[in-house]
């Protein structure tokens, strides 16, 4: 049976992991490779690295970091943040990323999805959709949630599937950072509307939230950052709990 995936997300700035960490056994949790290895040990099914660095110099350093991750990590990983062109993608895939994720750049120029899928295959194109409830409609927002668009989320999700996306990373900006749980309605609507895998994101605050989103929607995976970073939830405990709740997840040997 295909398992639901648990995906920790690591925010990277200037080559270092952002946000406070309290992993006791980790010598340098600010090093993305060290933190990634810890997550792999805990049983993470995939990893997402988001580069939130602005400058071009640091962007070049990102490729070096991706090479180190690829050399050390034995599960699939996705890299994103500031990807605007097929050249950006080529550098990251060449450095060893399995998938890349694009967000605002895909909204501004949807053909980018088709170009990347054409050259590297749909399986490596994860389109991140940030969405906010505006006048009772889930609406696509860009620039980290600062800029609303005219686009309805369901329509955009269907469109990115048509354009060649292999997966959707769906973040509810209303839930993000609240620790009150994933948006079940949104996740359910979008994952029913498309025939590609959907990753639920935004709002994870406890193990029950993962159970709820997996039980009530047909999303393929759930992503979270801070609850894993701060050591609030250990992925081993989460998977044990989900298994007891009859949600199929990968077991560690």
């Amino acid at each position, binding site marked *: 049976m295909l398992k639901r995936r648990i995906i920790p997300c690591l925010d990277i700035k200037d080559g270092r992991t952002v946000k406070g960490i309290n992993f006791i056994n980790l010598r340098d949790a600010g090093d993305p490779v060290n933190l990634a290895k810890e997550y792999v040990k805990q049983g993470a099914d995939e990893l997402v690295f988001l580069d939130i660095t602005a400058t071009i110099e640091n962007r070049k350093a990102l490729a070096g970091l991706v090479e180190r991750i690829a050399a050390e990590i034995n599960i699939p990983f996705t890299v994103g943040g500031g990807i605007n062109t097929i050249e950006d993608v080529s550098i990251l895939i060449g450095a060893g990323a399995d998938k890349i994720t694009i967000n605002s750049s895909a909204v501004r120029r949807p053909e980018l999805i088709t170009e990347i899928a054409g050259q590297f295959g749909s*399986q490596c194109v994860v389109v991140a959709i940030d969405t906010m409830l505006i006048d009772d409609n889930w609406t696509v927002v860009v620039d980290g949630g600062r800029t609303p668009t005219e686009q309805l989320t369901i329509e955009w999700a269907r469109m990115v599937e048509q354009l060649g996306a292999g997966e959707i990373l769906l973040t509810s900006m209303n839930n993000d950072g609240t620790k009150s749980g994933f948006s079940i309605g949104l996740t359910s609507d979008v994952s029913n509307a498309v025939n590609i895998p959907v990753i639920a994101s935004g709002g994870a605050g406890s193990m029950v939230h993962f159970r709820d989103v997996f039980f009530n929607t047909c999303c393929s995976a759930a992503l979270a950052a801070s609850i894993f970073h701060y050591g609030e939830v250990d992925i081993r405990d989460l998977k044990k709990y989900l298994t007891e709740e009859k949600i199929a997840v*990968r077991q560690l040997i």
Partner: protein
Amino acid sequence: MIAIVKYNAGNIKSVANALSRLGYYSVITDNPYEIEIAEKVIFPGVGEASSAMNYLRERGLDKILKSLRQPVLGICLGMQLMCRHSEEGDTKCLGIFNSNVQLFPAVDKIPHMGWNNFLSLKGDLYKGISKDDDVYYVHSYYPEICSCTTATCDYILPFSASMQYNNFYATQYHPEKSAGIGEKILKNFLES
């Protein structure tokens, strides 16, 4: 020396990385001579079937690959190209395995992406592996079950998770991305 066949497909570096984590040295090459003299050959790939077959034919690698006598491991698209025919781009493939490759019917999410287990394991690759172990799959086309099938997987319908014919081994999943289980399978191949 282990040769990793270079062609216009992604994922090649991941295989080299996985081998080096296991302590094996490899070269990524499309040089027919290097491939012929290698002790083991890995034929990886994520990509599109017809353009990959064209690349191999232009370099004469299609004939070389079929004639190899040392252990060969095809991965994902590599496995599909070792079959007779792929529906992807209506492509005539190498014909090592007597199986055809079809597009999944759209009754569930496509691609089949993520961790799934396998059933009816047989052969050298699965020493120390159990049917409840999960490996990482990502594919929209599947190889049918045939007499070469050494493990099956069930997603939408049952298909070949791996195959073997004489010295030719292949997996639809990605052992190089399948954590500790994948490393065991790769090791079993390398020690075969």
